[in-house]
């Protein structure tokens, strides 16, 4: 979905105003630390995946998404997931309490992470150098195709592996698809400038383009 989160190329958002690196703290308010840690700790229950959690934030009204600070959007997403999945109702609380992580296990869980590459016996449809077109299908559910590259032509820079497909994963289906680094020129995207943008896109979002 191209909601308030899909920001690539949007004009009129003003200056970036970065804080100087040497002066910037990791968190800016005490509650941000707690909202951050709560989001991770609840995520470790395993009741939702990364894409469901992203989608919970993206589904807000664009005006709210843009008005909120980053951790306000995290908090909103967490509240949405807890409510939609009814996790704070009595019958679920008992089930979840066995999944509550202890301080001792934090280091292990974080250093293990959650790889998303999957085994496959298929071969990729595209290869480095192939011209491809990003499908112009503006998916209304969760997707990792930014709207700025829909319908644009680029070429395959690299095959990144066989990775969990977010569009399906956000619906609770952990299936894999080939992932590619796709290089698209600024001319193609914006009609100006000389840089290149590299976007990671999955096979179902790409079609081949016959070389002219």
């Amino acid at each position: 979905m191209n909601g308030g989160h899909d920001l690539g190329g949007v004009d009129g958002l003003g200056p970036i105003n970065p804080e100087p690196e040497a002066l910037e703290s990791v968190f800016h308010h005490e509650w941000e630390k707690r909202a951050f840690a709560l989001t991770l700790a609840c995520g470790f229950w395993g009741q939702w995946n990364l894409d469901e959690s992203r989608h919970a934030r993206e589904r807000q009204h664009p005006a709210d998404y843009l008005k909120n600070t980053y951790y306000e959007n995290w908090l909103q997403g967490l509240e949405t997931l807890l409510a939609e999945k009814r996790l704070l109702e009595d019958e679920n609380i008992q089930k979840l309490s066995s999944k509550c992580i202890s301080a001792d296990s934090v280091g292990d869980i974080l250093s293990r992470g959650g790889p998303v590459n999957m085994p496959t016996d298929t071969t990729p449809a595209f290869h480095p150098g192939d011209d491809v077109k990003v499908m112009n299908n503006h998916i209304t559910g969760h997707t990792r195709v930014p709207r700025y590259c829909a319908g644009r032509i680029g070429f395959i820079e690299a095959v990144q592996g066989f990775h969990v497909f977010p569009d399906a994963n956000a619906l609770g289906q952990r299936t894999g698809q080939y992932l590619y680094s796709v290089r698209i020129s600024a001319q193609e995207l914006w009609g100006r400038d000389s840089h290149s943008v590299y976007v990671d896109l999955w096979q179902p979002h790409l079609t081949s383009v016959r070389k002219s």
Partner: protein
Amino acid sequence: MSDPHDHTTPPSDAELRTKALETLLIEKGLVNSQALNALIDTYENKVGPRNGATVVAKAWCDSNYLDWLRSDATGAIGSLGFTGRQGEHMKIVENTDSIHNLVVCTLCSCYPWTVLGLPPVWYKSAPYRARAVSDPRGVLAEFGAIVAEKTNIRVWDSTAEMRYLVIPQRPVGTENFSQTELANLVTRNSMIGVERDLQVTGDKT
């Protein structure tokens, strides 16, 4: 910035909601207060851009290590103990005289936590996410980095679980620097790509 409770400003809505949620979840036995503290401590004090600077300095000094980074960045970075969440699938992108790399996540805030820690506020901000892909030269100028017209700019939009680490160019005049001294020159911003020319500090010439 701090968040002082000076009794004149009421707590924000987000602060009240966070407190309410934390209290409820702890009461129900669903989260552990010490575990929350450990999560915060990890990213406030343990995992941050010094990890990335260690990788960069080693890449500058050790060509075998650089080759390993090029072919398997996840493994090469993991060999230094930097593994896990938001660094499961790493790739390096190298700056040269003719190439400058810039990393963004236009859709959210994907960032290589294992080597850089949590992203700064500006990286997560709407204007950065919007303009990094459409006007990278303008963005770089806003950070004080002027990139020559003839330099090709490559912008990496982290739309999947691949996480990108920029390897900035080693500053000239650092031939006698130790790996530790080199790591001290590497800024977080240079590993995201909003800074290009690293400054040589210290009296080593």
